[in-house]
């Protein structure tokens, strides 16, 4: 890893990014990979891995990587984003990239809140979850990215993993990369720790993620 991590201690994103990098190393594809970053905590990945990375705007990483891929279909285009960037402000582009079956791999870190801005309600905030902007508990069900994307694309590779199921997470990412190589859209959502905004630590963090799996079951979809 290139520099000191700028992520909070205990953040799940470092595990996701390190796993991605390990796969690229195993496949000897580090030079072929280009990692576009949404704005949100995902932006902190800009100098975390020794591969090509660039920041985009909030909600715009998928569209940017669609453009990148159309110019260089021979490289591996990754769009790395949080749940807000994917399912709220960036949903229109995500949905259309999926509908067109653009061969890019979208990796969504789902921590059920807007973390960079301090814990506001996200599209993945769960029913009754309290946030800065839902002080008496969120009153609806969260967005299910798997169902949403499947509804517009039968060929897409779709999986949801979790940072406490590392082996599966790695397999999902590998399959997503293969899907992109085969010319298909791929999205892997990963349930990720946010100790800072969840205000939990250690074992509680694992429990929190395991609880999330009721609303967000892991597996392939």
């Amino acid at each position, binding site marked *: 890893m*290139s520099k000191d991590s700028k992520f909070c201690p205990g953040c799940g994103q470092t595990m996701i990014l390190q796993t991605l990098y390990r796969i690229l190393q195993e496949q000897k594809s580090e030079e072929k990979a280009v990692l576009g970053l949404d704005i949100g905590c995902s932006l902190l990945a800009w100098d975390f891995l020794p591969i090509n*990375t*660039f920041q*985009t705007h909030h909600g715009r990483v998928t569209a*940017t990587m669609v*453009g990148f*891929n159309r110019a260089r279909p021979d*490289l591996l285009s990754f769009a790395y984003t949080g749940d807000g960037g994917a399912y709220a402000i960036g949903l*229109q*582009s995500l949905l259309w990239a999926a509908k067109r079956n653009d061969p890019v791999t979208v990796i969504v870190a789902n921590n059920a809140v807007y973390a960079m801005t301090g814990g506001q309600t996200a599209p993945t905030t769960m029913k009754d979850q309290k946030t800065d902007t839902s002080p008496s508990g969120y009153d609806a069900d969260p967005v299910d990215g798997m169902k949403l994307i499947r509804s517009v694309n039968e060929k897409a590779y779709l999986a949801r993993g979790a940072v406490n199921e590392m082996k599966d997470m790695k397999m999902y990412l590998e399959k997503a990369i293969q899907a992109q190589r085969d010319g298909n859209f791929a999205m892997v959502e990963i349930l990720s720790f946010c100790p800072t905004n969840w205000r939990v630590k250690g074992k509680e963090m694992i429990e929190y993620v395991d609880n999330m799996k009721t609303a967000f079951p892991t597996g392939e979809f």
Partner: protein
Amino acid sequence: MEKVNKQFLTGHEVVVQACVDAEATHMFGYPITPGTEILSGWIKKCQEDKKLHFLQTEDEIAAGFTVCGALMAGSKAFTATAGPGTVLMQDAMGMADGMRLPFVTIIAQRGGPSSGTVIYSQQEVNLAIHGGNGEGLRLVFSPSTVEELYRLTRKAFNDAWTYRFPTVVLTDGYLLKTKQDVTLDFAGENVEPKPLVSEHTQKNIRNIYTFEQELMDELENQKKDFDEMAKTVTEFESYKVESCEELIIAHGIVGAAARDAVDELQAQGKSVGLFRPITLSPFPKDELNKLVKGVNKIMIVESSMGQLRDLVKQSLEVENKIKIEGLYKPAVGIEVEEIVELFK
């Protein structure tokens, strides 16, 4: 393909031709009047030449960001938009501002605010230059004839890839819809595009900064580069200005009407000349200040409530107390006769 120099073409057609001749390869766009025919015209070219690519995106936001992605990858990509689309385009143009991307967009001005009217205005000057959340370091061309539209569209790609500032060809539905006999100048080299990232690089590129000072340093460097570029790219037309007492200032297609008006006024024995900025940003400041020294009055003529006037006022040296009058007709075309009438 054999090229015929003299042709009878619309503004839309010459824009598409200029993009092809500039060796652009990717257009990303969303249909909006009066710019749609650039997208459909480009798509027609894509059918003939498999090296050319297009994508009709879900909105102008995606059009802009797909352009950004393709530019990162080293493709000569561009978009075209208008009115409310120009507003949405600011998101991606802002990224291009921040990251010095050679972002080329053709803006077909239409009436505003809001959905406004669909044909014509000169109301997107501010948006073209200052639409982003920064300092407005963009290269903005305002062509006044179909031939100039060709020349400047082609130049836009070269300048964008040479200097790496977002570049706008600011036009309107009147000029784009005008069909005219044109002699296109095909000569000239194209600047080679270079990827920002590829398998041969290992770059980490950001547009968000941790410390205020870092961003300020970056902006000061950008400004230095922009001012350096200004020395080369700044363009204007001075028409019959020799010892003129009154000076019309107009841009774009209104500049063409003003040119005809100057002919008529001088035929009537009036001492009126025309100054037409071709680059609205950087603005031809030095030339303007030189020119106005012997002039009693400036007459601004534009299809907006004063967006050009404000550029002129910003550019005039402080001590200059010259009288400024104007004909301001937001979103309405201006006829030669109306300009002549101003000097009755």
